């Protein structure tokens, strides 16, 4: 049974994106509806709110071999849950400062605000971010001993 991941082996790049249900996931959908072409290395996980992003998710993702992690939510002030992204902003900002200390290039991590109408902004962001990750190449992984 081959259940292994089929991510572009040639480029060897895996990007995990966590998008909030209300704004950024909608923005990515809108980009799709508008047929805005995007790099295929990105895999989106839908979550209710950027405030639902546990900083451990990106850490876990990097630890498991994600080459880039992108998080996007509603613009500050526009959170569907009123305050979720304000907390997220603090949590993710701290994480961004912490990653390099643990040996993870902070360029591999990005958080941003994309509204449900910002299809082009989403396309531009994901294209640029993917390009950056391709430049950086595959992430170094801790060795698993089993």
């Amino acid at each position, binding site marked *: 049974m081959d259940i292994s991941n089929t991510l572009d082996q040639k480029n060897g790049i895996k990007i995990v994106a966590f998008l909030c249900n209300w704004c950024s996931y909608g923005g990515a959908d809108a980009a799709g509806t508008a047929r805005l072409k995007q790099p295929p290395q990105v895999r989106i996980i839908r979550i209710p709110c950027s405030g639902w992003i546990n900083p451990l998710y990106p850490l876990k993702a990097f630890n498991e071999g994600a080459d880039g992690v992108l998080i996007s939510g509603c613009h500050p002030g526009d959170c569907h849950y009123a305050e979720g992204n304000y907390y997220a902003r603090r949590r993710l900002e*701290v994480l961004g400062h*912490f990653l390099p200390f*643990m040996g993870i290039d902070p360029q591999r991590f990005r958080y941003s605000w994309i509204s449900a109408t910002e299809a082009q902004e989403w396309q531009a962001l994901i294209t640029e971010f993917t390009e950056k990750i391709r430049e950086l190449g595959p992430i*170094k992984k801790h060795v698993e001993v089993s």
Partner: protein
Amino acid sequence: MKEVESRLKEEVKKILDEVAYVVGYQEGLTPLSARPLFIRNPKEVDRLVYNDFCAPNLANYVKKSDQKIGIDQKVGLIVKGCDCRSVVQLLQEGILKRENLILIGVPCRGMISFKKIEKLFDPLETYLAEVRDKKLKVHLAQGEESYHLEDVVFEKCLWCETREPLVVDIMIQGPLSLELEQKEKDFDIVELEQKEPAELFDFWTAQFEKCIRCYACRNACPLCYCQDNCLADTRQPHWLGQQTDALNNFMYHMIRAMHVVGRCTGCQECERVCPVDIPISKIFRKTSMITQQLFDYIPGMKVEDVPPLLTFKKDEKF
């Protein structure tokens, strides 16, 4: 320090009627170490010691396990300046109740690190030790030796900013400084940060490969109060495997890091108790450096503060 100790004993005796117990220090395996002492009656006061070897952070012994929220049991606690910040942090988080604590503050002029002296001589073979003239003088089988205090006290004592406890009910006055040569706070982290991410990755991989996941760091941390419910132990969700390899150990330490962000007071108990000498407090102190830089917040300073990740400002920009 002898004088401090005898006055401390008197004060402890005075409050014994009011509290279930008082947490203090008693002699450890050697006179050059100390371990916690739970004093329930005047007789036990005789075993109480206070000297330059009283490193343990006693705040850890009154956190949730002994004083569950809602169970009103008054406890006496002997606190040094740095330990008191842990108490303040626990008060701020509502884990401890101020009215259930009698805090006896003791002066601290810097504590001697067992790990450091262990490297210089065998503390178990030492029958006398005293601090005099900025030196630690020890009597060993082969004769008397003396060491510069800068070389034997904890690094954190060389940048201590809170020698005097911030919140106390009773303060025992005494020497607060030996006028040792100070070091820049967290200079070790600043040095480490000069490395490239790739080098740091290798640095931490090497550290995490040593880790045996004994959980001593977690158990010694006054702010880790989840106990049996720790995320690192649960299989659902399955954050990490039981194998003690760098991959899984990384996740364990990241769980702790993300849980002490904006809370770590830098007592470094985690590092003191680590049996494999991982400089683990660097990770947690780094998170505090970040929250100080971003939010101008220092943990464990004011009871009425709100931890930075439990609040926000609408118009802040980073």
